[in-house]
């Protein structure tokens, strides 16, 4: 009784180990062909010892072998022999898929036929209580119905009994043949392999499978041939050893092949199988006792009690086993495949999520979910330098040891030197003067993970112990290291993204400012009989400091202005807008020009800082009298080229605007004649540089105007811009550039005009 109990427990342990290995290999890659074939094979192999254990618990078989008189469930137990065809399948796909496996798409499943036949037909049809095939034993209605078929039935019965006899004797031979086929397949596979690592793996299999085959032959084949009759216990041990050797080497090869962590799996397997075995043993003990009690009480000797108790056991055992399985999965079954998945999933988050809060929450979900850590919290550097405690994705009930962590706490300073996660106990030296350290200990902190952005300690992750109570493994620490690095990268990304957005917004605002400024510029050039105007504006940046405008004066004259504000960008543009607003208001009034400019100067001086100023040229053009009245407030001298080719600068006026509030301005007049050209421009034109550092300059401008004065005004402008950009090698410079050209139509008149002086 006690010997068989121990053997049963050992059987269950082996069975459980095989089940677990199957589960692990299946979980590693559920879609992998090798994985599910191997997993199913291990599952069948595990059935053997488990059924053996149950069989022992139920007592010795009524008769040995595959005899039809044994109870029904004994034949179900032989389900485990499906292992052998499955082994052939395995040999067909490992280490490389054999062409047969693909070519015989459906046909390959025929190798299961002997075993299915064995279980279904022999177990259910060739039983004494179902022996309706013998017409002599038939009675009643069945006899009436079936007696005409007596001959056929008799033949069938004979066939079955021969089959059964053969089967009983030689079924083990079929299994051995399968093992040999598998061995042969693996051997051919081995010969084709060139990779030394794969060869080592397969070599192990090539030792393990014949070993298992030999033991299996000793246990079943020799006895059925009547050569050797080993004691029952020796037979069981041989079977177990064969299973361990054969399937164990296969599992080992797979694990090495797929880079699974063997130590982890072995540890998990042991924990799982020992706990399962203890559970089964406990149940078995209970059943034995209860069964004995019932038998004594009822004075009955029937297998019915055992069978029903087994049924009960399975019903009770199932939920408990599921729970154990669940626990094992949650606490121990965290192999590299899981780490890989975690890291892959989190990497996808990093690449697509730009909200720091979401990144932190996902990370916390990973830590408290798949990794299964009891409590955890983040602290991230705040604006004041301290580390604010955050509890993203955590239960409300969790209490953090502090609200904020000081940046100068010795523990934090130690962490700032750490590249990798550290155990809290390793921080004990730093913790001597720390306020945080005792609170962390009290809180149950085990592991501290620094979150680094380049050289800066951006945050800290505090972890309590794992729910399982196990120490953090090397793999755990690696995982945290990788995850926090990813988090740091994600946080950097999200910050850069926010900055880019901000910049984009600013650029959009500048674009709007530019649009406004462009709309403020005149939409067209005024024109009238005897004269034509043309203009061009090229702002250097989005918004510029140049400005030009036309006005209709109360007395019918055409006002024109070109101004250049010091500086660039938005501040310059603001001053431009101000200038424009003042001027537009002033020119409506019938005031002398110097008075208008004085007012503008006064306002600009009073409303801007001292270093801001503007140069401005203003002119009123009287088309009737062909007279230009102007004020030059510190602006580049406009150039007048006469029809005859002489040049004049328009200098009269006063100081630049915005320097002295009480500056005074004078105006000057100039009579123009048909064919004359006036060019008003900003220094962006005259100060254009070529790559040699040479300036475009006023002389070149004058020369250009003299050479091209006969052209229509548009043509002069276009040619000027073309020549200027050609001079600067296509680059219109970093400064704003603005031009107004006034040309009086010559109308075929050709008179020698006496030049008017403007001073």
């Amino acid at each position: 009784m006690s010997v068989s109990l121990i053997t049963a427990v050992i059987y269950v342990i082996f069975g459980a180990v095989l089940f677990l290995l199957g589960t692990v290999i299946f979980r590693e890659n559920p879609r992998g062909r090798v994985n599910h074939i191997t997993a199913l094979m291990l599952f069948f192999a595990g059935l053997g010892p488990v059924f053996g254990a149950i069989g022992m618990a139920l007592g010795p078989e009524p008769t040995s072998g595959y005899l039809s008189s044994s109870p029904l469930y004994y034949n179900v137990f032989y389900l485990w022999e499906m292992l052998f065809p499955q082994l052939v399948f395995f040999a067909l796909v490992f280490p490389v898929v054999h062409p047969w496996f693909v070519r015989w798409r459906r046909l390959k499943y025929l190798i299961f036929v002997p075993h299915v036949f064995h279980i279904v037909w022999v177990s259910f049809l060739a039983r004494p209580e179902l022996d309706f095939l013998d017409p002599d034993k038939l009675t009643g209605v069945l006899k009436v119905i079936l007696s005409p078929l007596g001959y056929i039935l008799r033949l069938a019965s004979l066939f079955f009994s021969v089959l059964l006899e053969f089967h009983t004797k030689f079924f083990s031979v079929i299994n051995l043949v399968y093992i040999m086929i598998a061995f042969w397949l693996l051997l051919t596979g081995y010969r084709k392999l060139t990779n030394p690592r794969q060869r080592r793996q397969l070599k192990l299999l090539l030792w393990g499978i014949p070993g298992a085959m030999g033991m299996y032959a000793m246990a079943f084949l020799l006895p059925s041939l009547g050569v050797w009759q080993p004691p029952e216990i020796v037979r069981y041990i041989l079977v177990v050893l064969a299973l361990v050797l054969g399937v164990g080497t296969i599992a080992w090869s797979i694990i090495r092949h797929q880079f699974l962590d063997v130590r982890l799996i072995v540890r998990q397997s042991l924990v799982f199988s020992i706990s399962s075995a203890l559970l089964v043993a406990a149940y078995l003990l209970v059943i034995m006792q209860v069964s004995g009690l019932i038998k004594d009480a009822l004075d009955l000797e029937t297998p019915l009690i055992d069978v029903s108790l087994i049924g009960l056991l399975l019903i009770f055992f199932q939920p408990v086993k599921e729970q154990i399985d669940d626990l094992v999965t949650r606490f121990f079954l965290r192999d590299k495949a899981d780490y890989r998945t975690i890291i892959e999933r989190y990497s996808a988050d990093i690449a697509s999520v730009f909200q720091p809060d979401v990144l932190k929450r996902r990370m916390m979900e990973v830590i408290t979910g798949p990794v299964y850590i009891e409590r955890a919290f983040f602290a991230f550097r705040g604006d004041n330098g301290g580390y604010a405690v955050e509890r993203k994705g955590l239960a409300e009930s969790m209490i953090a040891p502090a609200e904020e962590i000081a940046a100068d706490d010795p523990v934090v300073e130690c962490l700032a030197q750490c590249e990798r996660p550290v155990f809290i106990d390793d921080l004990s030296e730093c913790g001597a003067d720390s306020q945080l350290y005792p609170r962390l200990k009290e809180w149950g902190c085990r592991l501290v993970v620094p979150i680094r952005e380049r050289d800066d300690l951006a945050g800290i992750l505090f972890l309590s112990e794992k729910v399982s109570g196990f120490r953090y493994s090397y793999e755990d620490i690696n995982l945290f290291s990788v995850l926090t690095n990813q988090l740091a990268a994600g946080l950097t990304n999200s910050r850069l993204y926010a900055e880019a957005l901000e910049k984009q917004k600013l650029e959009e605002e500048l674009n709007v400012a530019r649009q406004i400024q462009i709309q403020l510029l005149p939409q067209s050039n005024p024109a009238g009989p005897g004269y034509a105007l043309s203009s061009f504006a090229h702002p250097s940046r989005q918004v510029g400091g140049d400005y030009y405008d036309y006005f209709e004066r109360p007395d019918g004259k055409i006002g024109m202005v070109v101004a250049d504000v010091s500086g660039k960008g938005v501040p310059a543009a603001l001053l431009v807008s101000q200038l424009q607003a003042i001027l537009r208001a002033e020119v409506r009034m019938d005031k002398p020009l110097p008075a208008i400019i004085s007012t503008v100067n006064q306002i600009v001086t009073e409303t801007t800082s001292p270093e801001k100023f503007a140069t401005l040229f203003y002119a009123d053009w009287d088309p009737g009298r062909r007279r230009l009245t102007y004020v030059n407030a510190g602006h580049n001298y406009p150039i007048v080229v006469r029809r005859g080719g002489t040049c004049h600068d328009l200098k009269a006026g006063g100081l630049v605007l915005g320097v002295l509030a009480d500056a005074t301005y004078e105006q000057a007049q100039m009579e123009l004649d048909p064919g004359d050209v006036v060019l008003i421009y900003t220094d962006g034109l005259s100060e254009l540089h070529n790559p040699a550092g040479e300036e475009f300059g006023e002389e070149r401008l004058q020369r250009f105007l003299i050479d091209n004065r006969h052209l229509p005004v548009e043509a002069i402008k276009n040619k000027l811009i073309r020549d200027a950009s050609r001079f600067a090698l296509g680059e219109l410079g970093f400064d704003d550039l603005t031009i107004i050209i006034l040309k009086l139509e010559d109308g075929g008149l050709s008179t020698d005009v006496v030049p008017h002086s403007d001073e």
Partner: protein
Amino acid sequence: MKLSHREEAGVAILEPRGKIMGGPDATLLHDQLHEFIKEGKLKVIIDLSGVDWMNSTGLGILISGLTTLRNNKGELKLANVTEKIQSLLTITKLVTVFDAHDSIDEAIKSF
């Protein structure tokens, strides 16, 4: 722009070199002028012999310096103005605002 300074006959002399372009140059000059005002040095000459060119921002810096000193009852004079800057001052008519001299000695005498 590089900026050095010295003192001669009770007059602070600023010696910028290179191009006066604005940005950091403005702060540099501005800070130095305020330093002088704090030390009670209200007679300042800017020696422009080492400045070959300035843009409108550079001109703004000079105007701002002038205004700052005037507001503190001080005086700013320019000396050794190069031809290019002279023409800039002429065009903008800032010659009427700045007291420009051909040499440091002349500038010192003019105080």
